[in-house]
């Protein structure tokens, strides 16, 4: 029997703020455990929450980019449950009044535009991170209280491909808006997929299964394909699909049951009495709207205008860190084409080996000055590769390195002619060879000059001068 696939997606996104959602400790997860915490994150007695303005701004950005209706009166609620990663025993969330409602996202799948409706976007706080090792669970509260938004789609997608494209498009949009770093593998963006099958064309939905915590675009694809197959097989055999929460097992390449959802948990949601409603002023919303960073589409157009081809533009758009770096470089550099070439070829290969560490030593302004040394012919293309390597290793700027290594290209005639004359004097045969039509004599003398100049002579300039000298003899 032919069946339609119905997919809805919930995405949790950690927001790129300095501090946490409701407290002034640092928002960072990769650090020594339990050092970026305070009594609020730890859920100690007597603490109270205070709402982070930046988190609200970032949530608003997400709403604006996805065309959600914004609720200008912010309200928060408690979701009550006991779990070791939830120190207060409740999570502060927006159950009754999400900041954004009824939005949409247009995605392009196999050349066709697909309209995916969004149900809601709401703000909440993350839980502590737990590591399960041997007989114990290790709790790190650095993540407790990290600001999150949850983006809930309507069940508008009907294939793994659409689901993957939805997540990927949304992710890029949010990364570009500096809402999140979108690192799925590190958990700063996590997807839960709701999936059910129904008879083709029917309006009756099948039983919904939730696949939790998918941590890469690839796994979204694989998990959905596997789950569609599993549900199809069950239904083909006349069995029923149970309402369940499942996870994707990468080794087994299938989804496995985590828990049954038959008895719904009663979270006893009620309004958070410690956060009075906050009214977002029109001026505040306008400021957020005016400060929205460029979207990927806007960047694409800009790069094409600068002279990048589509492949280059796409490489940069899919690597936001490199794009941020490159966009400064392209503003500063004299030769944009040269800039694009170096960014696309050299920097991507360095990023492959060093990752973002590359930008700890390499600064965009230095890199632009370095490129200008090439276009001003201060250094040659060959020397430039070495210089870049040293820049990355040492963190020094190109000018300093060129001087330290005595690399400057010598292209003034008098210095070059000194070496040329000396070389011709030492090799009189070369003049004869040249006159007999042996053009390699030029190359020979240029080679000698390169030796004498320790590689600093400008080869093209030198070549011309040698030719001129031979003709004069």
């Amino acid at each position: 029997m032919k069946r339609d696939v119905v997919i809805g997606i919930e995405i949790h996104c950690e927001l790129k703020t300095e501090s946490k959602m409701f407290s002034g400790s640092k928002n960072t997860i990769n650090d020594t455990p339990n050092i970026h915490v305070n009594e609020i994150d730890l859920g100690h007695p007597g603490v109270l929450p205070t709402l982070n303005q930046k988190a609200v701004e970032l949530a608003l950005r997400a709403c604006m980019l996805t065309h959600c209706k914004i609720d200008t009166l912010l309200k928060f609620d408690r979701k009550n449950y006991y779990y070791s990663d939830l120190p207060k025993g409740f999570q502060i969330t927006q159950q009754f009044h999400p900041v954004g409602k009824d939005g949409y996202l247009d995605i392009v799948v196999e050349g066709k535009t697909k309209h995916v409706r969004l149900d809601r976007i709401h703000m909440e706080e993350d839980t502590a991170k737990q590591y399960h090792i041997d007989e114990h669970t290790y709790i790190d509260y650095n993540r407790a209280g990290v600001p999150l938004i949850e983006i809930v789609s309507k069940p508008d997608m009907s294939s793994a491909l659409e689901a993957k494209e939805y997540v990927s498009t949304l992710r890029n949009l949010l990364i570009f808006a500096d809402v999140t770093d979108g690192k799925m593998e590190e958990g700063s963006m996590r997807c839960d997929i709701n999936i059910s099958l129904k008879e083709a064309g029917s309006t009756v939905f099948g039983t919904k299964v939730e696949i939790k915590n998918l941590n890469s675009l690839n796994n979204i694809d694989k998990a959905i394909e596997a789950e569609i197959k599993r549900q199809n097989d069950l239904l083909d055999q006349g069995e029923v699909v149970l309402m369940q929460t499942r996870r994707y097992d990468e080794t087994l390449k299938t989804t496995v049951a985590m828990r049954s959802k038959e008895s719904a948990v009663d979270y006893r949601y009620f309004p958070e009495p410690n956060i009075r409603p906050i009214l977002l002023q029109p001026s505040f919303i306008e400021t957020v709207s005016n400060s929205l960073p460029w979207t990927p589409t806007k960047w694409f157009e800009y790069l094409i205008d600068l002279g990048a081809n589509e492949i280059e533009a796409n490489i940069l758009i899919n690597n936001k860190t490199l794009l941020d770096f490159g966009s400064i470089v392209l503003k500063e550099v004299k030769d944009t084409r040269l800039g694009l070439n170096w960014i696309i070829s050299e920097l991507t290969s360095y990023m492959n080996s060093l990752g973002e560490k590359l930008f700890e030593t390499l600064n965009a302004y230095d890199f632009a000055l370095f490129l200008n040394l090439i276009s001003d012919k201060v250094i040659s293309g060959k020397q430039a590769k070495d210089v870049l390597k040293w820049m990355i290793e040492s963190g020094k700027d190109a000018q300093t390195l060129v001087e330290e290594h005595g690399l400057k290209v010598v292209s003034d005639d008098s210095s070059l002619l000194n070496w040329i004359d000396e070389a011709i004097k030492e090799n009189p045969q070369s003049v004869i060879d040249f006159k007999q039509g042996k053009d390699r004599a030029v190359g020979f003398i240029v080679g000698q000059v390169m030796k004498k100049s320790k590689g600093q002579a400008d080869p093209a300039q030198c070549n011309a001068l040698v030719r001129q000298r031979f003709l004069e003899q």
Partner: protein
Amino acid sequence: MDKNTSILKLKSIQADTNACVTIIENDVKTHEGLLSDMPIALKDNVITKGILTTGGSKLLSNYIPPYSATIVHKIKQAGGIIVAKTSLDELGMGGTGTASFNGIVRNPHDLKRQAGGSSSGSAVVVAAKAVDYAIGSDTGDSVRKPASFVGVVGTKPTYGRISRYGIIPYASSLDHVGYFTSNVSQAARLCDVLSGHDPLDQTSLPYAPTKTLETLSDDVKGKVFGIFEDVIKAISDEETLKNFERLCSALIERGAILKSISMNEDLLRACLPTYYIIANCEATANHSNLTGVNFGLTQSGENVEDIMTQTRTVGFGTLIRKRFIIGSYGLKDENQEKLFRQAQKVRRVVVEEFTKMLNQCDGLLAPATSSCAPLLEGANTNVLSNTHLIAENYMILSNFSGAPSITVPSLPVNGLPHGVNITCKIEDEATMFNMALAIESCVKELL
């Protein structure tokens, strides 16, 4: 009063009254200010960094906080010296002083009687003249009722006037920081020390500290005292009523205007159940952090759930667990609308009525309690009587509305302390202290 006298006195009353959880001997003055050299006691739900803070609960009987409440910083900056953490009904839930993990608190005027609660110990240490200032907290009437029973001034300023950051909560939307003092002038002084916006408490009022002490006066000429008729009607104790009449006459002699004001009886009778539901529902969620995972008297268990269950079973008293059951029941999906939400709606109706009453006068006056402190044993209440529902519990109206409210000692009943309560308009502590000071001087004359 100096620190050493205070500590000696605290120790000498401890065996009889059980007023303190911890007596602190090593605190010193670090700043100069309105409270320079003044010994101060804190209810043991005020978080003190590095000093045991139990909240009156066995579950926190080993809890050494890593931070201090905002008011602790304010007290230190004003020159105060902290000398004790005082006993309270577990987690502030209780009105009798009999529900603390460390035993019953007794009334220093008659050890067979209650001191009232939940800020029992703080009331007692001021009554026993061991300190002039003691911090409490007031969710229903937890400062103003014990103040009446032990014969001291009990103040609860406007909701948000004093930061709640670092006060172990009971019910967040009803919780107020309050305090006990020996007289009204000290009450105004402490208000000026403790008040002011706190960036850590988003519900705190956005103003600078009050300056009520500077303008304090006992002149009530032309001031309108609203007499809360429903409360008077619900009191049967003749001495209480006679004393109240004498006080009223004395106020009239000073040029005050008395005006009888009342409220719909059904609404008044609904206040206690409204309070009961809101307070227990909020409390149930507020104390979900007490699981023994990262602090508290953790019990052993085979898994985390087991640890939590053991910790909460051993750590909470019977009364607390009962209240959590009620709270959790009221929040349950199928009950929330008819219990918790209905209570929140009734709260609005009541507050609107109460605000109208306050708008007809400068302050609303009534006996704080129907009589003197009850005996610890043998007290028998009819929970549906107006004496219980109205006369004994009407002060929760100022927790519902957030209005400032103060209990001032009046003429004794049965030879034991008894107070009257005055409640004023929101943010009008100045008038409240003015009227309270007038009552204080009237009572001095009448005694």
